């Protein structure tokens, strides 16, 4: 296999400034690539440069009055640092993540560059266009990045189509490289009954879990209405909604007569406990570019009922490793009932999900796919 010198440009990383899911996705990818390639990671941070698990981190400390200025400043500092380490054009591949370092991409556009779309501004805005200046600026940067990068990758086919439609990125230029997962981080060995009891739930009662921000995009309202239907024939079903968001008040109001426990934001350890104790994970999203929760549930060998949208639609095989439903409450209720009424089958679907994770979504094969994209650029 060809070995590359890769430079990552990403505004967050797991060991310094960490904002959302992008940090772990980019860091894991970098660490896995570092097994066969040399990887330098340019990002933000307040500590001195360091090497962790084979990846060299170079930190910068940007400033700016607003997000766009801040990111431009960050890009400029990154480029400066990049030139320090780029003696004799050492780096073969320059890999940019999302719009934040687009200014750096602009300055280094003559090199072999790759831009990865983890999401788009349009998607983050709930699949709607905005009319304020940041929206237009950021969308503009995304378009410009897609134009000048030598190659583009997206985390799912849905994301790829979105990028192609929004920013006119040609099909030949865009590859799909999904996110990976470290399944061990989500599979724990504990007594489900103990955890349920801690929430006042009988060990044999089916526990349905929703995890995610309580915002329109994630469909918690559909979920609550679906639960109302499920409870009509399963009085013993219990529900935990983990996560917080603008819709919480409204949802709690709606769910007053239902066995739903809103536990708000929970730390990771509690998430692991609940994930491994529950009997079913429901992902009622209206839009989901990738849907990491799916991989997390599968890692814990849990069956999944999810809406037939975005990355979820691509990755779930109905009745093989989960059930896909329409984003409407009757359909979701049907999916939930089908699962909890046949727990033996549900368990099998969950285990098949895990084997799909082990087959498709480990970081090693995914880093391999990314390296293929690298060779397409440099070749």
């Amino acid at each position, binding site marked *: 296999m060809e070995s590359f010198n890769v430079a990552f440009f990403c505004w967050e990383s797991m*060991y310094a400034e960490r904002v959302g899911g992008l940090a772990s996705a980019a860091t894991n990818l970098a660490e896995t690539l570092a097994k066969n390639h040399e990887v330098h990671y340019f990002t933000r941070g307040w500590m001195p440069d360091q090497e*962790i698990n084979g990846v060299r981190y170079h930190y910068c400390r940007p400033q700016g009055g607003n997000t766009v200025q801040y990111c431009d400043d960050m890009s400029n500092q990154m480029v400066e640092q990049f030139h320090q380490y780029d003696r004799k054009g050492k780096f073969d591949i320059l890999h940019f993540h999302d719009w934040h370092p687009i200014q750096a991409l602009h300055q280094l556009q003559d090199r072999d560059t790759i831009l990865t779309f983890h999401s788009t501004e349009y998607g983050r805005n709930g699949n709607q266009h905005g009319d304020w200046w940041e929206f237009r600026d950021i969308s503009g940067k995304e378009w410009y990045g897609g134009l000048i990068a030598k190659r583009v990758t997206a985390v799912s086919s849905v994301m790829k189509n979105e990028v192609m439609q929004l920013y006119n990125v040609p099909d030949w230029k865009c590859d799909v490289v999904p996110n990976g997962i*470290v399944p*061990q*981080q989500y*599979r*724990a*060995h*504990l007594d489900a009954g*103990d*955890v349920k009891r*801690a929430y006042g739930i009988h060990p044999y009662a089916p526990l349905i879990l929703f995890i995610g921000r309580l915002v329109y995009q994630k469909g918690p309202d559909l979920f609550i209405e679906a639960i109302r239907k499920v409870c009509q024939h399963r009085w013993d079903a219990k529900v935990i909604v983990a996560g917080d968001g603008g819709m919480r008040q409204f949802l709690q109001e709606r769910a007053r007569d239902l066995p739903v426990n809103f536990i708000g934001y929970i*730390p*990771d*350890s*509690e*998430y*692991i*406990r609940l994930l*491994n104790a529950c009997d079913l994970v429901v992902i009622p999203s209206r839009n989901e570019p990738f849907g990491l929760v799916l991989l997390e549930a599968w890692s814990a060998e849990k069956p999944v009922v999810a809406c037939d949208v975005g990355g979820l639609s691509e990755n779930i095989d109905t009745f093989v490793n989960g059930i896909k439903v329409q984003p409407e409450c009757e359909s979701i209720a049907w999916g939930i009932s089908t699962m909890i009424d046949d727990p*033996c089958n549900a*368990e*099998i679907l969950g285990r098949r999900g895990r084997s799909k994770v082990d087959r498709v979504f480990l970081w090693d094969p995914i880093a391999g796919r990314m390296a293929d994209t690298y060779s397409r650029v440099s070749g």
Partner: protein
Amino acid sequence: MPDVCFGFEVHQPFRLNRFFTPDPKKKKKDLPELYFDEMNREVLERVSEKCYVPATEIILSKLDEGFRCSFSFSGTLIEQLEKWQPDVLSLFDQVARHRNSELLGQTYYHSIAGCFGDKSEFINQAGMHTDLMYDLFKIRPTVFENTEFTFNNQIATHVKDMGYTGIFTEGVDRVLGWRSPHHIYTCHDMPVLLRDIQLSDDIAFRFANRGWDKYPLMADTYADWLAGTSGDVINIFLDYETFGEHFWKETGIFNFLSHLPAELEKRGVRTTVPTEALQDHAPVGTIDVCDTISWADIEKDASAWMGNDRQHAAYSAVQKAAAFARDKTLWRYLQTSDHFYYMASKYGTCGEVHNYFSHHDADDAFRTYMAVLADFEKRNIRVMKNRRSARTLRTLTCEEAFHFASDHGYVGYAAYSLDQFCDLLRVVPADSIAYHQQRGDIAHWIEEMLDDKKLAMDIRNCTDRQELIGMVNERRELLWSHLT
């Protein structure tokens, strides 16, 4: 018409003592009694009476009439027979020396050593088995059958280097693709005989299944199936206990066995032994097996022994125990595949099979195994040179293990050694680590359980996860360098 090559795996493990508790007063010579269950003798006696004696008598008479088949005896079975059932051993002796039978090689301890990263133990155990076969029966096996048919490219290469002329494994679809298992293939230049899953399982699993549309299976029907198959050689490989133990004699399994040779002869189907099959038929293609395959369950991979976290913990612990094993014999008993099989947590049809073969449930099996392994290491540490380092690196029992928790309770990860602890630090949720560091649990555990004051001091005030991983990792590498 293809030849048919019958093979029987005959094995009994030394099951671990379900009621094991460490007893420092026990001397070294008493350890087998302390570690292994009394029921081993009962099981052997029961299986001998129900299976080994009646089935072997039938097969002996059929061998005289020209029926041919092969046997694979594990070393642990032979030991048990020598101790408790010498008469059965003499029956097997007649079978083994019979001109129409062939003996197969395997690992003496029916162990999972073939999957270890370091293959020297595997080679040693295969050598021990050959020596045993030669001492008892004056025969050196030339065809190999690895534990439960576990097989991959590396195993093929090593078995070839040991001088065997062929090896048995499972005819797994994902390896063969469209090809038939009824031919000889080679894997890295090693000739491979592939078991026919369907026809073998017709006897091994479905024979007495009343829900099966072919029930009851008669010898003539089965002989028809074999005669109607195309190819060079059909390999039917079974657990010997299928006859009389898995299926009691009331199911008619013995009638089936005693009529099958005649029915085959009537149809002109020749029975053969592996060595001759390999001589008579040239390989028709190559197979490439990167991921380990086996004959277990529907997955046909190593997941029956290395499927869940606990099995992985036990598997890596027993590999690490190599550095502690001054007494190699006991360590080798602990490598027997059955111990790991009992820890499986699969459900459905395979779960039933696992339960059937197990004398205790999966949790209990794991707890017992770790307790015995921990006791074994502790005893060996007494005579080791670097006792301090060894004590820190040893395997712990379930009670001594570090259980990660948060203020809500157990999070579901437990570390049974410093090595595993270091690996888990990368995996467990950050807030759980923070919780323990705040309470000083980690330093306390390292000092009390692992006897490492220096490391305990170093990490006491460390709040950064990466730094913590770095320190623990550095320390364990240093300690390991003392042991090797």
